[in-house]
């Protein structure tokens, strides 16, 4: 197996894929959204309980590839307990990391562990897998639409 693909499918990702965190429905969500990638059939529901501008609780359900599932899992960890402003910044940084030309150093700023997904950039076709849940997050927060499709 080639080196860059090894870098992508590293232990932390595989662990989150196998045991996704916050992989659950939550009660009384204030914000929900669905994210669908018709290309590969990835489909997630995202549930948020935001109170006083703070993400009090978050959960997701659904099915998809290891990348989309582990991103989702790690995202829930990254946003729980955070202020909505910070969440939006995180989301922007994550999406920028994968869709624009920025250096790893810039990207790392807020993302912490999430920077492991930067190598998804080497697999352009998989970028949509990695950004799917973030697009759903965006939609949930904006409540513009509850359906998000990446294709």
């Amino acid at each position, binding site marked *: 197996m080639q080196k860059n*693909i090894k870098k992508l499918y590293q232990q932390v990702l*595989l662990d989150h894929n*196998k045991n996704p965190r916050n992989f659950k429905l939550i009660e009384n969500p204030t914000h929900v959204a669905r994210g669908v990638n018709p290309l*590969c059939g*990835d489909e997630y529901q995202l549930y948020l309980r935001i109170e006083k501008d703070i993400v009090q609780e978050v959960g997701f359900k659904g099915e*998809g590839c290891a990348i989309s599932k582990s991103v989702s899992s790690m995202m829930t960890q990254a946003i729980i307990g955070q202020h909505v402003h910070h969440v939006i910044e995180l989301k922007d940084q994550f999406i920028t990391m994968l869709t624009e030309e920025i250096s790893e150093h810039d990207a790392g700023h807020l993302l912490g562990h999430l920077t492991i997904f930067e190598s998804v950039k080497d697999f352009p076709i998989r970028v949509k*897998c990695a950004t799917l849940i973030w697009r759903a997050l965006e939609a949930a927060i904006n409540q513009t639409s509850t359906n998000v499709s990446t294709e």
Partner: protein
Amino acid sequence: MNKKSDFPIFESYPDLVYLDSAATTQKPTHVIDAISNYYSSEYGTVHRGVYELSVASTRRYNAARMAIQSFINAPSSRNVVFTTGTTHSINLVAFGYACHYVKEGDEILITEVEHHANIVPWQQVAQRKGAHLKFVPVTDSGEIDIDVFSSLITKKTKLIAMAHISNVLGSIFPVHEITAIAKENGIPVLIDGAQAIAHEPIDMVTLDPDFYCFSGHKLYGPTGIGVCYISDRMLDKMQPILFGGDMIETVKKEQTTFAPAPLRFEAGTPPIAQVIGLHAAVDFMQSLDFNAVKEKETHLVELVIGELRSIKNVRIIGNAKQRSSAVSFTIDGIHPHDIGSILDSENIAIRVGHHCSQPTMIRYGVPATARVSFGVYNNEDDVHAFLRALQAVLEVFG
């Protein structure tokens, strides 16, 4: 029989293990050169010019039609209508035929495992006409039960459309029986031959469907070209769906009369170079020992199925007795997309996803599958490389 040398892609990319011929086939030198040579030394418009380049192009265009007629054993070259692909061909039948004959309350019968190209046009017709789209169920092993099929035919059934070979399951459907039953009931049949054209001998006289559709790019031919075989009994019932030059007889401000078939269905400057490329592809096919090709493909399919069966957690989707060379599978706990990416890193090209057939995914309760499919260039080495890489996937996901 090593056919790789006929295909320059394997020279440009020697490590390539191409296992996605059901999506599109690679092109032999014979086809690539036919197109280049045509553009370089014979190019002209067709049907109109009195000058040599145009006369010769027209001759070649017509010769291609006759070569395809003979390849599929159609009664006449006028039954061979050039389109841009299977999708266009099916749409031609949907909007050029079905839309004019299907009435409110009527039924269109397709299987539940069709390609989107053989679903969405019928949904549209049904929607516009207030008709019903009915689905023939397919068994867990990917077969059609003829009795079940027959029981779904009613007096209101106005069209039957189904794949000759399923692009997901690899099943070869009993199109002869189905066509015969349809005929007994006086119902027109469209066969989507996209997956069959490169893998099964196709004979319009023997099969005698009303419509048979296929794409050049799955037959070692160029993109942008396809065929809609239209039987004599249907030719005069069809309306064109595209209008313009070449398909007319006389245009007056008030009114237009159309040219006879097949030109009537070929509006505008046709895809001339693609037609010539398709002719070359048919030549290429006919230069092969078809039985030997089938034998090799069958061998590879058996090999890959046998090995996949021995892997824990692998599920093969589609185990029809009559099957062709596309093999879909899933692995518990590993998403097909991840399989595809890891295989790609080893230069192994397989297809993962819904294969343009989401209802089939729903039918088999999977979000997606991984699919391996073969062309004339594949050999045992390709299968072994695939299986080795699959082991690596299993190890990663441990």
